[in-house]
């Protein structure tokens, strides 16, 4: 009984020191690992001051959390054993009594008991001298504190890159929502059994899907609110087109009630999405684009193209009149001109074309009518008079052609750049290239002559 008691006393003493040693080890490793995490986070925060990185704070937190986890894992593998604790105690002048007693704790022979009792006597007299300093060295604490402060300061300093990161993130979030919305409608379209559709209908359905895929791509590439608005505009149009097309298909496939209801459901989804889009657009219009609405009113006045004006009117009603107004301006640039040019059969360049149109526009809640004479370079499609069979169009009663824009692709309603500007830009680049020796010797004159030929 006495032997057992002494054994328990010995093990209890070693266990107590071991627990404190492990706590010390844990604090040390956690401090080291969190310090490493802070350092990594500091680099990220510094980077976020220079370059847009929205998740810098999150990464910092993750780095610190990783430090905590790493510290815990490292600690787990470096925990002090009872033997190590015993050796630690011995380092306070116990002359390896404790480690020997611990190793012989299973033995009950005379020598082992004598040794254990001797150790316990020694412990009783010297236990106060065994100290475990939990706090790490002052130097380490200072380094850690400095790192913490610097990281905190870096995380709180405002910067342009940080603002830009927030902006980009917001855009990305909106784009992501839109992509999800598109995915849903695409999924719904994919559920429709193409085998039940006629080849034309199947083709139409594919085109709708492709159009939505293109919008997805556009959203994924959007890097500004302007690009988003543009993508919204296109998507809204695609929704309206898809709604019409799907409803038509539903009507045509009435005999197949299941297919018809699938198409109707898809059309309804597209319509709902369009309405949702309109609501968003309305909000935007209320917030900031009233001025553009006015502009669009002017555009409407000048609008030349009846078809386009109709679309614009629709947009205007839905509240995205500002953007639509811009469309109106484009219209101003000359659908008429295209007509005239088409008439001349020079639709590709069209810079000198001019013409008139009796179009009207509903852009910006204002019906605009007017006429204009503008230079333009839009492709014009004359009624059945062009040589290019790929260009199809319908002639108006006055002999001009009706033109429209295909809004299903990626390239739609881009910035208008004049022919002269494009040629001028390329010519400048070529001349700069010649000056900087970019081109092979002897080719300079060839290049110069080539660009000069455009001016002739």
């Amino acid at each position, binding site marked *: 009984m006495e032997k057992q008691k002494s054994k328990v006393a010995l093990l209890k003493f070693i266990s107590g020191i071991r627990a404190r040693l492990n706590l010390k080890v844990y604090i040390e490793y956690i401090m080291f690992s969190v310090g490493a995490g802070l350092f990594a986070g500091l680099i990220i925060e510094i980077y976020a001051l220079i370059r847009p990185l929205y998740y810098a704070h999150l990464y910092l937190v993750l780095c610190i959390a990783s430090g905590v986890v790493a510290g815990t894992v490292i600690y787990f593998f470096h925990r002090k054993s009872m033997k190590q604790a015993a050796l630690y105690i011995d380092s306070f002048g116990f002359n390896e009594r404790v*480690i*020997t007693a611990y190793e012989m704790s299973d033995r009950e022979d005379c020598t082992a008991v004598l040794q254990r009792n001797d*150790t316990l006597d020694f412990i009783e007299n010297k236990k106060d001298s065994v100290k475990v300093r939990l706090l790490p060295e002052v130097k380490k604490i200072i380094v850690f504190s400095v790192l913490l402060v610097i990281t905190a300061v870096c995380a709180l300093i405002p910067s342009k890159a940080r603002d830009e990161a927030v902006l980009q993130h917001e855009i990305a979030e909106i784009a992501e929502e839109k992509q999800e919305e598109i995915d849903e409608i695409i999924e719904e379209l994919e559920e429709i059994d193409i085998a039940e559709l006629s080849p034309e209908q199947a083709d139409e359905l594919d085109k709708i899907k492709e159009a939505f895929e293109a919008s997805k791509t556009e959203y994924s590439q959007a890097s500004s609110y302007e690009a988003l608005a543009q993508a919204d505009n296109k998507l809204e149009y695609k929704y309206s087109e898809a709604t019409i097309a799907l409803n038509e298909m539903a009507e045509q496939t009435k005999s197949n009630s299941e297919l018809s209801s699938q198409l109707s459901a898809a059309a309804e989804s597209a319509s709902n999405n369009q309405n949702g889009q309109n609501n968003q657009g309305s909000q935007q219009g209320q917030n900031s684009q009233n001025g553009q609405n006015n502009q669009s009113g002017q555009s409407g006045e000048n609008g030349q193209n009846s078809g386009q004006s109709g679309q614009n009117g629709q947009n205007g009603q839905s509240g995205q009149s500002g953007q639509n107004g811009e469309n109106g301006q484009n219209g101003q640039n000359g659908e008429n001109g295209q007509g005239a040019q088409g008439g001349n059969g020079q639709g590709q360049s069209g810079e000198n074309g001019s013409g008139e149109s009796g179009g009207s526009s509903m852009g910006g809640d204002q019906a605009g009518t007017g006429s204009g004479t503008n230079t333009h370079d839009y492709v014009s499609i004359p009624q059945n008079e062009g040589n290019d069979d790929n260009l199809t169009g319908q002639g108006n009663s006055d002999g001009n052609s009706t033109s429209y824009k295909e809004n299903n692709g990626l390239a739609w309603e881009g910035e208008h750049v004049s022919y002269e500007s494009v040629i001028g830009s390329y010519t400048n680049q070529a001349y700069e290239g010649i000056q900087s020796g970019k081109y092979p010797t002897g080719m300079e004159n060839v290049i110069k002559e080539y660009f000069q030929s455009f001016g002739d």
Partner: protein
Amino acid sequence: MDNEFKTAADKISACEAEIRKSIIGQKDIVRQTILAVLTGGNVLLEGMPGLGKTRLVATIGKVLDLSFKRIQFTPDLMPSDVTGTNIIVKNESGNSFKFEPGPIFANLVLADEINRATPKTQSALLEAMQEHTVTVGNESYAVSEPFMVLATQNPIENEGTYPLPEAQLDRFMFKILLDYPTREELKTIVNLTEIEGEKEINKIIDIMELIKIKELIKEIPVADAVMDYAIDLIMKTHEKNPYVKLGASPRAAQAVIKTARARALMEGRYNVSFEDINYCAYPALRHRIILSFDAMSEGITEDMVIKSLIEETKKNA
């Protein structure tokens, strides 16, 4: 059992005190010699003439009540002068051979200036030192127990000497270096021998007690950590070291552990400590480490190398 340990420790302390009545200073020398005696190891004492080597051995013999024989090694000393020889004796039945034991048949044998004898004679000691037997002709004779050889050699006057080969050096448990006494010690020595007169040396323990103590020493436990420390220290002598040509043999590890246990008992402990290992490492390793030419040319001694090896081992412990 507790009393036995305490009595043993007390007896050893008493022996040490008694020896120190005759040997002034040289505390570590006395203690290391006692350690070797308690563990039955042979000792090589190296020091200048007149430092009390022979006196130390003789005193130990008296204190421990051990039979003591001295052999002065000279170049013309023959092996039979050490081991003994068969002689013809006349008796009633006629002439017959009788083995006449040599001076090696004693508990304590002092091989004075061992390096002056030829290797052949030196080798005569080998069997007795290691096996505790002496073979003459076809007969082997056991030497009396406890048995140990305490050899002395002079670090100077190397001309005409035969340095002990490594194999023989390895048979010595300890190589103990004797240094000059300090001023105070020298004064006490002169007082003791020339003015006051030498004190009488008393027997403290007998052979039976000594054997019992030797048994008790074997009971002293060695923790794994301490054993590992000792092994690490020995293994360090084998690692690449510019000053070490050849490391210590396994006998070195045995010697360190054995004498460390004895030291623990002397200190009144029931366990071996790192300090015991360190203390015993110097005399146990210094003749087992062969220094490189670099060490010799730079004036590095065995003790310096051992000290650095201990420091390295401590760091890794």
